[in-house]
């Protein structure tokens, strides 16, 4: 069984919601990523989203853009990101990992080579931001036989027709983008999110996880009331940015933010 499916089954049995942190691989430098992933697991992460840095992250706000730039300065490429997962798996065989990024680095590596390496190192899901289901057949054909899920975004503006298409193609979970705009944007209306999630459930049985706009324990707990999982990215990545000069302070800072969310969600 794919680790993502296993994890959601376990969480459901415990009546708990998934906490899914995102960091960009190679930020602030490649040597620290694996350690930070372990730190996130220690502070209550259920699933890890690891960003593949890209030179042109069109759907991301300034926080993730800067993270990509910091990672790319150090030469972090997709091959290294996969090596990091390999290293992480030496001491953690349980926590699901989802790679999140843009299509060009994957296409340049080759879909077949990428999928084979994902299986080999233990990647459980892939979310390609700029690959909607209509354009996904070739990559999915490589990932699916290897047990790697293709995960999709759903937006507040997604039509019912599209939601049905996405529901049919998706696996693992659906990543519901709770706001219009780019990552790191402002405030969140939980009532509106709940309404939209309820409408989405008509099109898919997959767990619905909500990202964009979650920055503290309070917002995480509020979203956890209505969703199956809470995704937190910019709030963590901005901690890395703030401490880029004090690398030893990064892990404690991430732990503080995530533990707070975990606690708020579980209480």
């Amino acid at each position, binding site marked *: 069984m794919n680790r993502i499916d296993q994890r959601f089954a376990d969480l459901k049995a415990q009546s708990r919601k998934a906490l899914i942190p995102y960091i960009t691989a190679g930020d602030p430098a490649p040597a620290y990523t694996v350690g930070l992933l372990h730190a996130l697991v220690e502070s209550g992460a259920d699933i890890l989203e690891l960003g593949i840095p890209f030179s042109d992250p069109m759907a991301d706000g300034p926080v993730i853009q800067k993270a990509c730039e910091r990672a790319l300065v150090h030469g972090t490429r997709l091959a290294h990101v996969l090596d990091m997962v390999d290293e992480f798996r030496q001491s953690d065989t349980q926590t699901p990992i989802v790679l999140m990024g843009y299509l*060009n680095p994957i296409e*340049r590596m080759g879909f077949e080579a990428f999928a084979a390496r994902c299986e080999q190192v233990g990647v459980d899901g892939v979310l390609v*931001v700029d690959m909607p289901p209509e354009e996904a057949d070739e990559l999915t054909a490589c990932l699916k036989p290897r047990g790697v899920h293709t995960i999709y975004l759903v937006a507040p503006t997604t039509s019912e027709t599209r939601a049905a298409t996405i529901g049919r193609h998706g696996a693992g979970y659906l990543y519901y983008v709770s706001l219009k*705009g780019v990552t790191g944007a402002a405030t969140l209306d939980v009532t509106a999110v709940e309404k939209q999630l309820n409408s989405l459930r008509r099109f898919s049985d997959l767990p619905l996880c909500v990202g964009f706009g979650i920055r503290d324990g309070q917002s995480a707990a509020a979203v956890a009331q209505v969703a199956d999982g809470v995704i937190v990215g910019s709030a963590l990545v901005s901690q890395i940015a703030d401490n880029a000069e004090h690398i030893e302070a990064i892990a404690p800072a991430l732990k503080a933010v995530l533990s707070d969310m975990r606690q708020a969600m579980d209480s």
Partner: protein
Amino acid sequence: MSMPTQADKASKFSDLAQQPDSRGHFGPYGGRFVSETLSFALEELEKVYASLRDDPEFQADFDYDLKHYVGRPSPLYHADRWSRELGGAQIWLKREDLNHTGAHKVNNTIGQALLAKKAGKPRVIAETGAGQHGVATATVAARLGLKCDIYMGAEDVERQKLNVYRMRLLGANVIAVESGSRTLKDAMNEAMRDWVTNVDDTFYIIGTVAGPHPYPEMVRDFNAVVGREARRQSLEQIGRLPDALIACVGGGSNAMGLFYPFLQDEEVAMYGVEAGGKGLETGQHAAPLNAGQPGVLHGNRTYLMSDEGGQIIDTHSISAGLDYPGVGPEHAWLKDVGRVNYVTANDDKVLEAFRELTHVEGIMPALESAHALAYAKVLAPTMRTDEHLIVNLSGRGDKDILTVAKIDGIEF
């Protein structure tokens, strides 16, 4: 991705004008590779365009503006003296430089701004590199009373101060983009981010035949007036179709505009000229069709300049308007099926052509267009004097005077 098969390569000329398919694919290229957050905006745009493209009233408005505001048709000018100097084919210049705002760009911005107006969007945004598309957008926004924000890489804002001021005089707000390489591609990223956030009241006017479907098709259609006129003028003035067409290719909108109405004319050869920069061998160029490989950027699959890890790399060209790491997906397709020949012209040859046309014909071309002229200098002498060559003179060179002066060691 699937590469074109032999069957594709053998496709009939009559099929070439039938692209793209309903989801915006030109063979394996094009498409709509965007975040789900943008899908709604693009579906909405596709609907608006589909409902208006064949609407007689919209077409009449568009034609009226092209005639009375832009000054079309632009002449097809026989560069008799230059042709004699080169000693080969007769060279004809399609004078897009004589359009209002000085380039072909305005054909597209008029079309898209009319769409914005019909769609009830009070605000338009655009990306710009050298500033030509920004100026053309600011111009039509001023005329239609639309609020206008232009995204421009911080580096380009510095390099193109005159156009920045020109846009501001026209009432546009110019936003300097500090992310990434601080050039055109980053301006496009930022404009997309703006659009996804403000889609309710905002229309994004993309300046070239790239981007997600339906932009490549739509921008081509608005610029195809260039090729339709040239075809008609050729029949009237030469008495037959030309033997070859030449146009410069950055994103490729002036080239697509000229080529498209001729795609089914098997006897017309076509040449797209990419920016060779300091030479392909130096890596400092902007020639993805000649030296790149297929990939995905800015919503479409096309030829790109990226490193082995798939990161987009910096480009170089003497002309800011060609300084882009991608190219329109229809060009990628036309390259693979062999309908258009894509070649390069290096900075030094471009400057030479710029000076030569200015001296010999009294026409100062944009440095972008001078790429097409540089290749005409190569091609024309290999042709007979009773053969005819049309070069798209896509823009005028006034904007480049400071660049050329600097190369000559002159500071103002």
